[in-house]
Protein backbone atom coordinates (compact mmCIF):
# COMPACT_ATOMS: atom_id res chain seq x y z
CA UNK A 1 0.00 0.00 0.00
CA UNK A 2 1.18 3.55 -0.62
CA UNK A 3 -0.25 6.88 0.46
CA UNK A 4 1.08 10.06 -1.10
CA UNK A 5 -0.08 13.50 0.07
CA UNK A 6 1.73 16.57 -1.17
CA UNK A 7 1.35 20.34 -1.43
CA UNK A 8 3.24 22.24 -4.09
CA UNK A 9 3.60 25.80 -5.35
CA UNK A 10 4.68 24.65 -8.81
CA UNK A 11 2.22 23.79 -11.60
CA UNK A 12 0.49 20.46 -11.30
CA UNK A 13 0.29 18.18 -14.35
CA UNK A 14 -2.58 15.69 -13.88
CA UNK A 15 -1.14 13.42 -16.59
CA UNK A 16 2.08 13.04 -14.61
CA UNK A 17 0.12 12.37 -11.41
CA UNK A 18 -2.10 9.76 -13.09
CA UNK A 19 1.00 8.18 -14.56
CA UNK A 20 2.57 8.01 -11.12
CA UNK A 21 -0.60 6.47 -9.63
CA UNK A 22 -0.78 3.87 -12.42
CA UNK A 23 2.90 3.12 -11.93
CA UNK A 24 2.33 2.50 -8.21
CA UNK A 25 -0.83 0.52 -8.89
CA UNK A 26 0.63 -1.80 -11.50
CA UNK A 27 -1.37 -5.01 -11.28
CA UNK A 28 -4.44 -3.40 -9.70
CA UNK A 29 -7.63 -3.63 -11.72
CA UNK A 30 -8.89 -0.09 -11.19
CA UNK A 31 -7.55 3.43 -10.79
CA UNK A 32 -9.95 6.34 -10.28
CA UNK A 33 -8.85 9.96 -10.33
CA UNK A 34 -10.35 13.41 -9.95
CA UNK A 35 -8.84 16.69 -11.12
CA UNK A 36 -10.06 19.99 -9.72
CA UNK A 37 -9.52 22.98 -12.02
CA UNK A 38 -9.53 26.72 -11.21
CA UNK A 39 -12.76 28.15 -12.60
CA UNK A 40 -12.87 30.80 -15.33
CA UNK A 41 -16.07 32.38 -13.96
CA UNK A 42 -17.16 33.00 -10.36
CA UNK A 43 -20.40 31.78 -8.77
CA UNK A 44 -21.75 35.27 -9.49
CA UNK A 45 -20.80 35.06 -13.16
CA UNK A 46 -17.79 37.38 -12.99
CA UNK A 47 -14.66 36.46 -14.94
CA UNK A 48 -11.74 35.18 -12.83
CA UNK A 49 -8.08 35.77 -13.63
CA UNK A 50 -6.49 33.71 -10.90
CA UNK A 51 -7.07 31.72 -7.75
CA UNK A 52 -4.92 32.38 -4.68
CA UNK A 53 -4.57 29.41 -2.35
CA UNK A 54 -3.04 30.35 1.00
CA UNK A 55 -1.62 27.53 3.06
CA UNK A 56 -0.40 27.00 6.61
CA UNK A 57 3.26 26.03 7.12
CA UNK A 58 2.43 22.87 9.08
CA UNK A 59 -1.31 22.28 9.26
CA UNK A 60 -1.93 22.12 5.51
CA UNK A 61 0.35 19.17 4.87
CA UNK A 62 -0.88 17.45 8.02
CA UNK A 63 -4.52 17.83 6.90
CA UNK A 64 -3.76 16.37 3.46
CA UNK A 65 -1.90 13.43 5.01
CA UNK A 66 -4.72 12.80 7.48
CA UNK A 67 -7.38 12.76 4.76
CA UNK A 68 -5.33 10.55 2.42
CA UNK A 69 -4.52 8.06 5.18
CA UNK A 70 -8.14 7.96 6.31
CA UNK A 71 -9.27 7.13 2.76
CA UNK A 72 -6.71 4.33 2.48
CA UNK A 73 -7.82 2.81 5.80
CA UNK A 74 -11.54 3.22 5.29
CA UNK A 75 -11.80 1.76 1.79
CA UNK A 76 -8.80 -0.55 2.04
CA UNK A 77 -7.54 0.62 -1.34
CA UNK A 78 -3.97 -0.20 -2.28
CA UNK A 79 -2.85 3.29 -3.32
CA UNK A 80 -3.95 6.85 -2.63
CA UNK A 81 -2.40 9.91 -4.23
CA UNK A 82 -3.33 13.50 -3.35
CA UNK A 83 -1.40 16.44 -4.76
CA UNK A 84 -2.66 19.95 -4.04
CA UNK A 85 -1.50 23.27 -5.43
CA UNK A 86 -0.96 26.35 -3.32
CA UNK A 87 0.02 29.90 -4.20
CA UNK A 88 -1.17 31.70 -7.33
CA UNK A 89 -3.01 29.55 -9.85
CA UNK A 90 -4.09 30.95 -13.23
CA UNK A 91 -7.77 30.34 -14.07
CA UNK A 92 -8.09 27.10 -15.98
CA UNK A 93 -5.08 25.44 -14.34
CA UNK A 94 -5.37 22.30 -12.20
CA UNK A 95 -5.72 22.79 -8.43
CA UNK A 96 -5.81 19.25 -7.12
CA UNK A 97 -5.30 15.66 -8.16
CA UNK A 98 -6.94 12.98 -6.03
CA UNK A 99 -6.69 9.34 -7.02
CA UNK A 100 -7.09 5.86 -5.63
CA UNK A 101 -6.39 2.38 -6.94
CA UNK A 102 -7.43 -1.10 -5.95
CA UNK A 103 -8.15 -4.53 -7.36
CA UNK A 104 -11.77 -3.57 -8.15
CA UNK A 105 -13.43 -0.33 -9.12
CA UNK A 106 -16.05 0.29 -6.41
CA UNK A 107 -13.68 0.97 -3.54
CA UNK A 108 -11.50 3.13 -5.79
CA UNK A 109 -14.52 5.27 -6.83
CA UNK A 110 -15.65 5.61 -3.23
CA UNK A 111 -12.17 6.52 -2.01
CA UNK A 112 -11.80 9.27 -4.65
CA UNK A 113 -15.27 10.63 -3.81
CA UNK A 114 -14.46 10.61 -0.09
CA UNK A 115 -11.10 12.31 -0.67
CA UNK A 116 -12.71 15.20 -2.51
CA UNK A 117 -15.58 15.67 -0.03
CA UNK A 118 -13.07 15.94 2.80
CA UNK A 119 -10.57 18.07 0.87
CA UNK A 120 -13.33 20.56 0.01
CA UNK A 121 -14.22 21.10 3.65
CA UNK A 122 -11.16 20.14 5.72
CA UNK A 123 -7.95 20.72 3.77
CA UNK A 124 -6.29 23.65 5.56
CA UNK A 125 -6.26 26.10 2.66
CA UNK A 126 -7.86 29.46 2.06
CA UNK A 127 -9.11 30.30 -1.44
CA UNK A 128 -9.45 33.72 -2.97
CA UNK A 129 -10.62 34.39 -6.51
CA UNK A 130 -9.26 37.49 -8.23
CA UNK A 131 -10.58 39.14 -11.36
CA UNK A 132 -11.57 42.48 -12.89
CA UNK A 133 -14.51 42.72 -10.45
CA UNK A 134 -12.17 42.45 -7.42
CA UNK A 135 -11.30 39.60 -5.12
CA UNK A 136 -13.50 37.29 -3.06
CA UNK A 137 -12.81 34.60 -0.47
CA UNK A 138 -14.39 31.26 -1.32
CA UNK A 139 -15.62 29.11 1.55
CA UNK A 140 -17.41 25.76 1.49
CA UNK A 141 -21.14 25.96 0.76
CA UNK A 142 -23.81 24.14 2.76
CA UNK A 143 -23.92 21.53 -0.02
CA UNK A 144 -20.19 20.86 0.50
CA UNK A 145 -20.68 20.28 4.24
CA UNK A 146 -23.72 18.11 3.46
CA UNK A 147 -21.71 15.97 1.06
CA UNK A 148 -18.93 15.67 3.62
CA UNK A 149 -21.57 14.56 6.13
CA UNK A 150 -22.49 11.53 4.00
CA UNK A 151 -19.36 9.80 5.22
CA UNK A 152 -20.07 10.27 8.93
Amino acid at each position, binding site marked *: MSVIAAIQETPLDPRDELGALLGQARGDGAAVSFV*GVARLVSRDGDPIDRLI*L*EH*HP*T*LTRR*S*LEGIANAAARRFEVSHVRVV*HRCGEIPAGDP*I*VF*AGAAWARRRAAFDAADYL*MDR*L*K*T*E*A*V*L*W*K*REEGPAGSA*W*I*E*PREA*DYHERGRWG
Partner: protein
Amino acid sequence: MKIRFHGRLADALGRELDIDLQAPCTIGRLRQRIAASFPLAAGLLGDHRVRACVRDRLVADDHRVAISDAVEFLPPVSGG
Protein backbone atom coordinates in the same frame (compact mmCIF):
# COMPACT_ATOMS: atom_id res chain seq x y z
CA MET B 1 1.22 37.91 22.93
CA LYS B 2 1.48 37.38 19.19
CA ILE B 3 -1.78 36.67 17.37
CA ARG B 4 -1.68 35.57 13.74
CA PHE B 5 -4.57 35.59 11.32
CA HIS B 6 -5.08 33.70 8.07
CA GLY B 7 -7.32 34.07 5.03
CA ARG B 8 -10.15 36.58 5.25
CA LEU B 9 -9.34 37.28 8.91
CA ALA B 10 -5.96 38.67 7.81
CA ASP B 11 -7.78 41.03 5.43
CA ALA B 12 -9.86 42.35 8.31
CA LEU B 13 -7.28 42.37 11.11
CA GLY B 14 -3.86 42.23 9.48
CA ARG B 15 -1.51 39.26 9.51
CA GLU B 16 -0.24 39.82 13.02
CA LEU B 17 -1.38 41.53 16.13
CA ASP B 18 0.42 42.09 19.43
CA ILE B 19 -1.74 41.93 22.51
CA ASP B 20 -0.61 42.87 25.97
CA LEU B 21 -1.82 39.91 27.98
CA GLN B 22 -1.24 40.21 31.74
CA ALA B 23 -2.46 36.75 32.73
CA PRO B 24 -3.38 33.44 31.11
CA CYS B 25 -6.85 33.38 29.59
CA THR B 26 -9.07 31.17 27.47
CA ILE B 27 -9.29 31.28 23.69
CA GLY B 28 -12.93 32.37 24.07
CA ARG B 29 -11.89 35.36 26.19
CA LEU B 30 -9.19 36.21 23.70
CA ARG B 31 -11.75 36.24 20.87
CA GLN B 32 -13.94 38.59 22.91
CA ARG B 33 -11.03 40.89 23.62
CA ILE B 34 -9.98 41.12 19.95
CA ALA B 35 -13.62 41.56 18.88
CA ALA B 36 -13.99 44.43 21.37
CA SER B 37 -10.94 46.16 19.91
CA PHE B 38 -12.02 45.52 16.30
CA PRO B 39 -15.83 45.67 16.27
CA LEU B 40 -15.97 45.45 12.48
CA ALA B 41 -14.31 42.04 12.66
CA ALA B 42 -16.44 40.77 15.57
CA GLY B 43 -18.81 38.87 13.28
CA LEU B 44 -15.95 37.15 11.48
CA LEU B 45 -14.21 36.16 14.72
CA GLY B 46 -17.45 34.91 16.23
CA ASP B 47 -18.10 32.45 13.36
CA HIS B 48 -18.13 29.02 15.04
CA ARG B 49 -16.12 27.68 12.09
CA VAL B 50 -13.18 29.93 12.99
CA ARG B 51 -10.70 27.70 14.80
CA ALA B 52 -7.83 28.64 17.08
CA CYS B 53 -4.43 27.02 16.84
CA VAL B 54 -1.72 26.97 19.53
CA ARG B 55 1.67 25.33 18.93
CA ASP B 56 0.36 23.74 15.73
CA ARG B 57 -2.63 22.16 17.48
CA LEU B 58 -6.25 23.13 16.98
CA VAL B 59 -7.78 24.01 20.34
CA ALA B 60 -11.28 24.71 21.65
CA ASP B 61 -12.57 27.97 23.13
CA ASP B 62 -12.04 26.72 26.69
CA HIS B 63 -8.33 26.10 26.09
CA ARG B 64 -6.19 28.31 28.33
CA VAL B 65 -3.28 30.07 26.72
CA ALA B 66 -0.13 31.18 28.50
CA ILE B 67 1.29 34.68 28.13
CA SER B 68 4.19 33.20 26.19
CA ASP B 69 1.97 31.38 23.67
CA ALA B 70 1.37 32.51 20.10
CA VAL B 71 -2.19 32.00 18.90
CA GLU B 72 -3.39 31.65 15.33
CA PHE B 73 -6.98 32.09 14.18
CA LEU B 74 -8.05 30.11 11.12
CA PRO B 75 -11.17 31.04 9.15
CA PRO B 76 -13.18 28.29 7.41
CA VAL B 77 -10.90 26.18 5.23
CA SER B 78 -11.54 24.90 1.74
CA GLY B 79 -9.44 22.88 -0.66
CA GLY B 80 -10.19 21.13 -3.93
